[in-house]
């Protein structure tokens, strides 16, 4: 078997010479195979074998059939080389042709990427993610079995950082770039030193230094000023209607801002710093810092500017009310969910809060006769979460956007369904009184049904009596005047470097401003949509092209992420703010699936639930094949740009890494993780082995059910568990609402982890551990 030799005595005849001798025959067979395989054009194992068999027949048997058997034996070495070259030339030519043809090369390059990622994660000690962000705290995991101590030196000359031993060879490093500076060029790959028990190992990590990203505005039209924050560069940016701007350095991870005191003061909340800053808007100086828990996510000032509401995520989720202007703590209202958007309603005693995970809108009230804030029982449920929300003129309505018109909680089963919609929520009646989709066709369409306007409404602001809406998908701003119903007056703003606009605000005196986090710019416009001023916070594309192509590709990738396809869908439509909309979608298959986060996917090839794409750039195929490509042509490679952008996103910052934790409990959780055999598939440090398992093997009941119902036999990609607690619902179709439910309700065969053998305390420790990831 598999031998190239035989016992000639078996054949009963003297040995005969082969057409070509020894290894040369094999080389020629391979060359001919290289010629045939690309010609077949199918990059499957079957095509490979077929090509090989054909080559084998041609090289070994054809000469005999055509009476050429002895020909090569008569050739000199030089003639044989010439023959080899002759055979090689067309093979190489075909390969070059294939190289120009994108699809087969992607398949081949994808295998390389998969092998690289898998090998990197198996190269011990291994660190994940292999990505250093200069703008935010990060938690790294290092897998170094058998080691007692691991230190990490992130840059040459810096002190080694100690890690926490979690047990079973897993070490954890909580890194804060504010404490340990990460000097280096954006996009560079650096060698990081992992010292396991004193033995140094170098590992390559990519450094990402983000540009300023101005997003949503707070404004004071009467004062002619607006403000926005850039979480990436820890800045508050103040913009005056006359075009002047000021950048104020604030604390770590500014998340939102709000004006009070007639527009003379700005409150700034932070994700990563336990402080709320009060800034003098005129001077651009921090006047006060007030201690608050970390992960303050949104701010809202009451209409009378006497109360400030701070939305808190993290260990204590809820709303912290502060008095203004002294910012003294009033009451804290705990919430059973992480608050997303908040806005005061008709007065300082009514606060509307959205829940992204639960896809609902709730109302808190503080009636004069009641000492405490209470949450109304009546909840507005939506099929998709609120994308943005603002207080309507006069405070009688809340204006919010979502990706559907549907106002019930049931998942939408329509195939690839996105319908960006503006909802008007009447606060008096507490019901949605008006809804209108924003998607519009246009006069430039070259295909029936092409969407040209109104994709991804990202920000809404009151402008005079009407509304200004910024659309990130179609690079435009629309005006909705009162009484015009669903009529929107669209204006493209993509003549200027203001792509994927996120924020829009009234600056008073018939001027308004718009922000572009992608380009790092703010534009100030007049009532006729004429650009008055353009404020650049970051280098433009031409400058970047001269410096370094990596960050430029990332910028273009971010632009592509928000850009609408012809079908009116963008990546952002489902991957809300590069994360997930926590909803179930029909994406062509019979069953519904939940939306995966884009954060932390780099280095975990293959991608998507069944792992059909070995490269991140391969996901661009979805755009081409399902969403009918983009309307506008560009000179650069969108797929490559998307890959650069997505691979620059680390796992989502988990608030738990900034809170004190019990090391013993963490080790107990890791013990339970190993005891339940989770680590076989969810292998540290990425918590995935990059493999796929048949659904029937891991979830026999579920696998049998989908086979029976949908005639589906699917392989499920092992997901990485980094940041898993932040992206409910769980399992690939979102059927488990909580981590506990994954094991208690959806693991009856005990094959998705041997959790049956865990005690109650061990099970709780396992959940705690998963939450810490």
């Amino acid at each position, binding site marked *: 078997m598999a031998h190239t030799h*035989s016992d000639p005595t078996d054949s009963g005849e003297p040995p005969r010479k082969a057409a070509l*001798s020894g290894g040369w025959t094999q080389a020629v067979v391979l060359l001919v195979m290289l010629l045939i395989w690309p010609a077949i054009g199918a990059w499957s194992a079957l095509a490979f074998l077929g090509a090989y068999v054909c080559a*084998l027949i041609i090289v070994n048997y054809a000469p005999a059939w055509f009476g050429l058997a002895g020909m090569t034996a008569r050739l000199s070495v030089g003639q044989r080389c010439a023959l080899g070259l002759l055979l090689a030339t067309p093979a190489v030519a075909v390969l070059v042709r294939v190289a120009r043809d994108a699809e087969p090369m992607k398949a081949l390059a994808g295998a390389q990427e998969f092998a690289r990622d898998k090998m990197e994660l198996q190269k011990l000690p291994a660190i994940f993610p292999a990505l250093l962000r200069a703008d935010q705290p990060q938690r790294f995991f290092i897998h170094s079995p058998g080691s007692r101590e691991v230190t990490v030196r992130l840059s040459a000359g810096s002190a080694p950082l100690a890690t926490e031993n979690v047990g079973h060879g897993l070490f954890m490093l909580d890194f804060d770039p504010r404490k340990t500076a990460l000097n280096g060029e954006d996009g560079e790959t650096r060698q990081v030193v992992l010292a396991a028990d004193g033995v140094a190992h170098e590992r390559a990590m990519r450094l990402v230094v983000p540009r300023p990203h101005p997003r949503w505005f707070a404004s004071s039209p009467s004062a002619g000023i607006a403000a926005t924050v850039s979480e990436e560069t820890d800045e508050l940016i103040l913009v005056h209607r006359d075009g002047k701007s000021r950048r104020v350095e604030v604390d770590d991870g500014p998340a939102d801002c709000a004006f009070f005191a007639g527009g003379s003061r700005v409150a700034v909340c932070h994700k990563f710093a336990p402080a709320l800053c009060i800034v003098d808007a005129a001077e651009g100086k921090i006047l006060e810092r007030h201690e608050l828990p970390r992960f303050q996510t949104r701010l809202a000032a009451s209409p009378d500017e006497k109360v400030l509401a701070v939305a808190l995520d993290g260990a204590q989720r809820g709303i912290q009310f502060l008095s203004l202007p002294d910012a003294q703590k009033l009451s804290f209202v705990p919430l059973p969910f992480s608050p997303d958007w908040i806005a005061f309603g008709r007065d300082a005693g009514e606060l509307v809060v959205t829940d992204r995970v639960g896809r609902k809108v709730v109302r808190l009230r503080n009636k004069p006769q009641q000492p405490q804030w209470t949450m109304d029982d009546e909840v507005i449920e939506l099929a998709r979460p609120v994308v943005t929300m603002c207080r309507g003129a006069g405070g009688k309505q809340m204006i919010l956007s979502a990706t559907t018109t549907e106002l019930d909680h049931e998942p939408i089963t329509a195939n690839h369904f996105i319908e960006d919609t503006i909802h008007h929520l009447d606060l008096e009646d507490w019901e949605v009184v008006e809804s209108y989709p924003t998607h519009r066709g246009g006069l430039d369409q070259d295909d029936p049904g092409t969407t040209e306007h109104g994709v991804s409404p990202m920000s809404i602001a009151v402008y005079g009596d009407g509304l200004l809406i910024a659309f990130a998908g179609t690079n435009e701003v629309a005006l909705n005047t009162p009484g015009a119903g669903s009529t929107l007056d669209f204006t493209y703003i993509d003549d200027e470097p203001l792509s994927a606009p996120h924020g829009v605000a009234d600056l008073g005196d018939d001027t308004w401003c718009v922000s572009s986090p992608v380009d790092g710019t703010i534009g100030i416009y007049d009532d006729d949509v004429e650009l008055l001023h353009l404020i650049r916070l970051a280098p433009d594309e031409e400058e970047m092209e001269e410096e370094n192509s990596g960050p430029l590709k990332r910028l273009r990738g971010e632009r592509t992420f928000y850009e609408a396809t012809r079908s009116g869908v963008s990546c952002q439509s489902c991957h809300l703010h590069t994360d997930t909309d926590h909803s179930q979608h029909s994406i062509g298959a019979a069953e519904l699936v939940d939306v995966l986060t884009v954060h932390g996917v780099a280095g975990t090839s293959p991608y998507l639930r069944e792992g059909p794409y070995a490269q991140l750039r391969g996901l661009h195929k979805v755009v081409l094949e399902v969403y009918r490509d983009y309307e506008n042509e560009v000179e650069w490679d969108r797929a490559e740009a998307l890959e650069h952008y997505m691979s620059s996103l680390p796992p989502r910052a988990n608030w738990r890494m900034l809170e004190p934790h019990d090391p013993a409990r963490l080790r107990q959780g890791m013990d339970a993780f190993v005891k339940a055999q989770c680590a076989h598939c969810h292998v540290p440090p990425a918590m995935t082995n990059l493999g796929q398992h048949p659904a029937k093997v891991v979830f026999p009941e579920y696998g049998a059910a989908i086979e029976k119902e949908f005639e589906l036999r699917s392989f499920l990609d092992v997901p990485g568990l980094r940041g898993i607690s932040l992206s409910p619902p769980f399992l690939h179709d979102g059927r488990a609402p909580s981590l506990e439910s994954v094991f208690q309700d959806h693991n009856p065969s005990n094959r998705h982890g041997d959790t049956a053998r865990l005690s109650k305390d061990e099970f709780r420790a396992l959940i705690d551990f998963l939450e810490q990831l």
Partner: protein
Amino acid sequence: MNEDQTMRSGFLKSIHADTAIVGGALVITSLASVLVCFSSGYYIERDIFASQLSGYSALAFLAISILFGPLLRAGGWLGIHLDWKVSVRITKNTGIASALAALVHSGISLAVYLRGNWREVLEHLYLHAGLLALATLVLLLGFSTRPLMSRTRWHLWKPTFRLSFAAAALVFIHVLYAPLASARWTVGLYTGALVISLLRFLPSRRPTPPLAPGFKVSDRSAAAGCETHSAK
């Protein structure tokens, strides 16, 4: 000693040490793989170990079968020579062992890991590759039987057995994409195998065998290139 005992003794004596070693290794790994399936423990640990044990042994046998020739060629330059009959036997026996171990591996994987869901095999690239590799090896196993060997003759039999290289490539895809296999180990093994394969292009350095009656001197170089030719 009766006639039966004499025959058995003769049969045992006719088994060469190298054949016994290869056969023993095959029996031990196969038995161990099967026994693991009946052991206690969590399914993924037990089933995967059983699959891996049989699968890796099939791969090891295949690697020896393919690389033995080039290694022997290099050995010739280091002064290490092996009787061609022994080398042919080892190559052939490890090839047969590889196919049999692959059959055991497939049976175990289908029975315990895939729980008899044979249709799952058609759903994933790495299982496609594994299935094709198995089919190729089984085909070659058939061609290794004495009746087929004598029918195919040397000049057809040898190129046919080059399909083992295609099988090796398919096994590479299979192991690389297998969820619980080591990519580093696989890539390392195949890189090493590729380097060793290049030794095939070394000129042969083996002791000159006596010429067979009717065998010309000019044929010797070609025979050396094939490594296996010797006068009767």
